[in-house]
């Protein structure tokens, strides 16, 4: 209900009917501002109301008391503890329900799906047996000398020397052609191997050395040392 404006006039009837129920300040305001005629007419109406005869014929009070006593019985009913508990049980239950809802919405969005997935789908058995690690192929280091592959790991020293000798012959043939060209154009190219040079491997194309691993390099170096030593002795 809307709060009504309460000025001095609005408390006039309360002042007339029950001055003790007004604060001293309210009494003073009504006393100083009230119209005496209004006070009198208000008192007159209230007197008429109180003078009205009661409506209806009153029942037999003793009979009613007996009837009520018979209706309620002789025992005081047990106090229903939950009536007072409702005051805090209802808010507590509401807070708990809200907390559960927040927990489910906030954290349970993906969890049920993941749990279902784990529960329903059996683990997939491997369709093929794990393959044993492949046996490591024997390592081979090849030296390409003028297009001829020489296996440094799988060949004996003689085979390597033969290969190098063939490669030398091939290189010598190529050098002859270059020599003829040089005679004509006098094209000087110090990087090319000269005929009769002791180099077994042509110096014009040594990029293959970069592809050798450490073992291959060591072996090649040993071969070259062994091959060069008797020649120097002979000279």
């Amino acid at each position: 209900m809307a709060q009504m404006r309460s000025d001095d006039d609005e408390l006039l009837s309360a002042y007339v009917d029950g001055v003790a129920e007004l604060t001293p300040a309210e009494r003073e305001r009504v006393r100083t501002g009230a119209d005496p005629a209004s006070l009198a007419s208000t008192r007159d109406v209230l007197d008429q109301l109180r003078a009205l005869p009661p409506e209806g014929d009153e029942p037999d009070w003793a009979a009613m008391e007996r009837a009520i006593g018979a209706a309620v019985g002789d025992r005081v009913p047990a106090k229903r503890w939950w009536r007072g508990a409702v005051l805090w049980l209802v808010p507590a239950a509401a807070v708990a329900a809200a907390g559960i809802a927040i927990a489910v919405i906030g954290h349970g969005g993906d969890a049920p799906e993941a749990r279902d997935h784990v529960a329903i789908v059996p683990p997939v058995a491997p369709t093929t047996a794990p393959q044993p690690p492949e046996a490591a192929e024997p390592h081979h280091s090849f030296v390409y000398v003028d297009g001829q592959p020489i296996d440094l790991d799988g060949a004996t020293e003689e085979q390597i020397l033969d290969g190098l000798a063939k490669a030398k012959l091939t290189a010598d043939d190529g050098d002859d052609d270059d020599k003829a060209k040089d005679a004509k154009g006098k094209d000087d190219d110090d990087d090319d191997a000269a005929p009769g040079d002791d180099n077994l491997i042509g110096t014009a194309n040594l990029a293959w050395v970069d592809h050798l691993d450490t073992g291959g390099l060591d072996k090649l170096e040993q071969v070259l040392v062994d091959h060069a030593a008797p020649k120097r002795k002979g000279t």
Partner: protein
Amino acid sequence: MHVYAPSALLMSEALASDPDLDLVDSFQTGDRRAFDTLVRRHQKGMWRVARRYLRSDADAADVTQQAFVRAFKGLGSFRRAATVRSWLYRIAINCALSWLRDHRREQPTEIADDAIAADAIAPTKLADVQDSARLRAAVAQLPPKQRMVLELRVFDDLSFKEVAELADCTENTAKVNFHYAVKRLRDILSEAGGADA
């Protein structure tokens, strides 16, 4: 010796001085006779409250008994938020309203009631009866809230605080409603007096 909780210390003077609280304490400790005392104290007032709603003596008696039965069941859990009297009157009003809902078609009209009462009295008192009927008719014309506040205050002698509890408003609002009800009655009666003259 009573030990009061802090909330009890904050109770208003009206609640603290409620003469029925001792009876409630006794009842809550198992004294069945305390309820009989409450019935003797308040059955008349509860019957009057019910009678104003129902306009039938017998129905008012039935509703009063029903209200006391309901109060008996709830008195053990009475929380002392209001006076015992206003709590009982509230139960009576609720029971009367429930009864009206259940017996809506059986209610006699107010005009028929007044006509029967006027026919049954002696001619010498006719003027008084007419004045009374006019005054009651004026009360019946009031807005429901003003009428309720006025009747509880004038016919049931409740304090403004108790009236406010029953009318579900503040004490100040109850005082203001009371004033506008009296003012309206003044106007209605003055208009009626002028018409008679």
